[in-house]
């Protein structure tokens, strides 16, 4: 199950709507091993395409060095599909290279850049096998409060 704060969920959706009809992409980093997506990092889609996304290679290195320095990992890797459903394509499955990440897909096919609901779904992709998982959205700040409660 993916547990994500409302604020982060909204930021991913806003990014997907903003970049429509091109695919938007990014990560949400979190402390290594915590499974907590905490730091929203939108990335530029170097492919600038409605059907493909790729992080720029220089920005990719900078991102991973930054996460390394903070003892973080990419807890969520997200991207949008702009004309098809929010389900991993063959390309997504073939290129998935973070076995520990939640792969979030947002589909903007219904409302594009406009207001309106989007499909927001999360998957594990390991060794070519896709497993959809539940998404739980917590009011922003809740996760931290719960943690401080004994």
């Amino acid at each position, binding site marked *: 199950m993916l547990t994500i704060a409302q604020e982060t969920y909204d930021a991913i959706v806003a990014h997907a709507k903003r970049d429509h009809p091109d695919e938007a992409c990014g990560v949400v980093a979190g402390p290594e091993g915590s499974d907590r997506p905490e730091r929203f990092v939108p990335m530029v889609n170097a492919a600038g395409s409605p*059907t493909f996304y790729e992080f720029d290679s220089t920005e990719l290195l900078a991102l991973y060095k930054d996460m390394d320095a903070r003892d973080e990992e990419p807890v969520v890797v997200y991207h949008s599909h702009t004309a098809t459903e929010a389900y991993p394509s063959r390309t997504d499955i073939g290129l998935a290279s973070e076995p520990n990440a939640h792969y979030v897909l947002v589909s903007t096919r219904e409302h594009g850049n406009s207001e309106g609901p989007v499909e927001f779904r999360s998957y594990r992709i390991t060794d070519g096998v896709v497993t959809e998982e539940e998404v739980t959205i917590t009011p922003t700040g809740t996760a931290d409060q719960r943690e401080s409660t004994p």
Partner: protein
Amino acid sequence: MAIEVRIPTILRTYTDGAKAVEGSGGTLSALIDDLEGNHPGIKERLVEDKSGSVDLRRFVNVYINDEDVRFIGGLDAELSDGDQVVVLPAVAGGALPA
């Protein structure tokens, strides 16, 4: 000569979980052959046969001292003692079928 090679999560099955290993070689190509000797199977994940010649896989990024090797000679990129090599799989995908 020792070159530190940072290994991404998905390839740590070849390095017994190690995040970084040491290797040697005067070029990236030689370094990859050296890594293959100690971590069999890793080479296949980094390079592929492209119409008769061996090249880096399209969706594998390799950096020498923070420079993408594609801009400094690819597999022929030169290495010296103390260099740091980082391997990162591309983060890519999309609706288009491959």
